[in-house]
């Protein structure tokens, strides 16, 4: 059988990561989120912190490139060869594609559903949850007040959306960008993971 890769996008506090972990365990395959950065770092010879700083952020350092005031148009256009976030994203994407080539795995975030769009056995899933539940989860995890949690969620979602929509052609969290969109609040983490498991089993006739 060919490798199956599952790309999971998620709202902050939706339990997406937990669901991905359970699903990975059920399928007996590996699960990558931040670990991806280590893979990318190893392949490129760069330090992991470089990727951490650029993680799920759109490119900004490119802007700095333009700040050569003397620059004529020609000058401005011939620049842009430094290690900016765009390049880091390209390196990370290569790492994702390599992984998907060598093993079945689950990849959380990092525009994986776009990066792997040509992979024959790619499943793309987006996980949401009710706002109250997301706030509760973030309050517990971050030991934050209700207001703080709401702010963390708003900022995190915004960052993920900007990152996703800058680097991929689909829209973050929009049904047409994914095979499956699901709200984890209705059945809970475990049952949602179980449901996704049976979907994948049926789809690939495991």
């Amino acid at each position, binding site marked *: 059988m060919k490798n199956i890769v599952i790309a999971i996008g998620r709202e902050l506090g939706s339990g997406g990561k937990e669901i991905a972990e359970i699903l990975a365990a059920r399928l007996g395959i590996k699960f990558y989120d931040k670990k991806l950065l280590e893979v990318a770092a190893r392949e490129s010879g760069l330090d992991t912190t470089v990727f951490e700083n650029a993680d799920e952020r759109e490119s900004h350092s490119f802007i700095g490139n333009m700040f050569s005031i003397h620059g004529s*148009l020609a000058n401005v256009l011939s620049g842009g060869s430094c290690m900016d976030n765009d390049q880091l994203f390209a390196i990370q994407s290569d790492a994702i594609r390599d992984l998907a080539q060598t093993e079945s795995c689950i990849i959380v975030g990092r525009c994986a559903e*776009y990066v792997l769009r040509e992979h024959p056995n790619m499943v793309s899933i987006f996980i949401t949850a009710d706002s109250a539940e997301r706030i509760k989860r973030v309050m517990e995890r971050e030991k934050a007040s209700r207001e703080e949690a709401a702010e963390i969620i708003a900022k995190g979602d915004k960052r993920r959306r900007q990152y996703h929509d800058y680097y991929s052609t689909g829209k973050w969290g929009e049904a047409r960008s994914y095979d499956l969109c699901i709200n984890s609040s209705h059945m809970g983490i475990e049952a949602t993971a179980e449901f996704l498991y049976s979907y994948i089993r049926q789809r690939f006739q495991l």
Partner: protein
Amino acid sequence: MSNNIEKKVPTELGTEKVGKLLMLYAIPAIIAQTAASLYNMIDSVFIGHIPDVGAEAISGLATTFPFMNLSAAFGAMVGVGGATQLSVRLGQRDYESAKNILGNLVTLNIVVGVIFAAISLLFLDEILFFFGASNATLPFARDFMIVILIGNPVTHMYFGINAALRASGHPKQAMYATILTVVMNIILAPVFIYLLGWGIKGAAIATILSQCITLAWQTKLLSNPDELLHLQRGIYKLKKDIVKGILAIGMSPFFINAAACIVVIIINKGLRSYGEDGDISIAAYGIANRMQFIFVMVVLGLTQGMQPIVGYNYGAKRPDRVKRALTLTIFWGTLVTTFGFVICEFFPETVAMAFTTEPVLIEQSAWAMRVMSAFMPLIGFQLVTTNFFQSIGMVNKSIFLSLTRQVLLLIPLLLILPLFIGEKGVWYSMPISDAIAAVLTIVMLAIQFKEWKREDVGHTIQN
């Protein structure tokens, strides 16, 4: 799927000798920059030698510089935005999206180019007066600009397509295109100006015609259906998402170029209102500025070569190589601007004679060069360090430093100093701003190195 066609990281950046890498990366960039700065100079040189055409024509030409900056600002908005998006898509081998970006880039260039030209032509005299023209210099500026503006869509296309070529993996062809345009301009300009007797208009026609020819060649290159990304039907219709993306990225290069335009306007206006003979002063500034520009461009080419080396090694945690690349680039950059300093301080008359035959103007521009270049050796260091901060991802520091010299310090000085010492105030503002900016740069670099040292020590203690 991913056949690992090409890996994104040139790992030689972490292993090869720093000096060799710098040469490898910097020389093509320096050539491109020199070509680009020559491009800006050719017209000045040829127009300055039209018989019986004196300082007025050169001064008129100088008042069109802000226009060029403004046009470049719009070109950069579309070109940089489009090229950035293009390279992100190509990095994902997403040719489907890339071709639509290419098509939209072409359409946007035409739209922006035409609108800019139309509005500028409509208010041409008013704009030129605003940029510092006088009744005596206006006719020359107008003659030149009418042709340039009619050709503006071509100019935008030429730069836009070149950006697309570079982004789509043809940096060599993009460089040849730049050189081709410069060479053609050098050949055509004297023919049109002197032989055919078209005067200042001939210079403009030569500029546009060489761009037209290069554009034809570029278009042919990009129309090759064997290329994964090529010009084809059905990609030119503007798409909201693409246009929005291009403009979002293109905004900052737009503002930087627009800022350059504003600075020149303030200088021209200052020279006009405080100067004895505003026209001569403006022409002298045009000449001196052109001269400085070459050396600045060479240094910028050098820093472009430094950026990937510093960027990679900083990321790979190799401070020794980062430091080596920085010191080496500062050394070469300072050498270049010191060379410029020597020329501008000791042989300014000779330089001025390349641009004009008018004795008054030669004298005035030689004086201008001496003043403007007073702290020129520092500029090399300042430019390299500014770009260094950018290469290691400290964009805010980089932006701050490049704004100090050219905007934050310069504009207030330009507005205040002349109130006390008249025209000299305009001239002195430039070297003063250079010097203060250099001091600021040294301080920021020193603080940065101290911080790194502390972090280092902290690490060793922790371990």
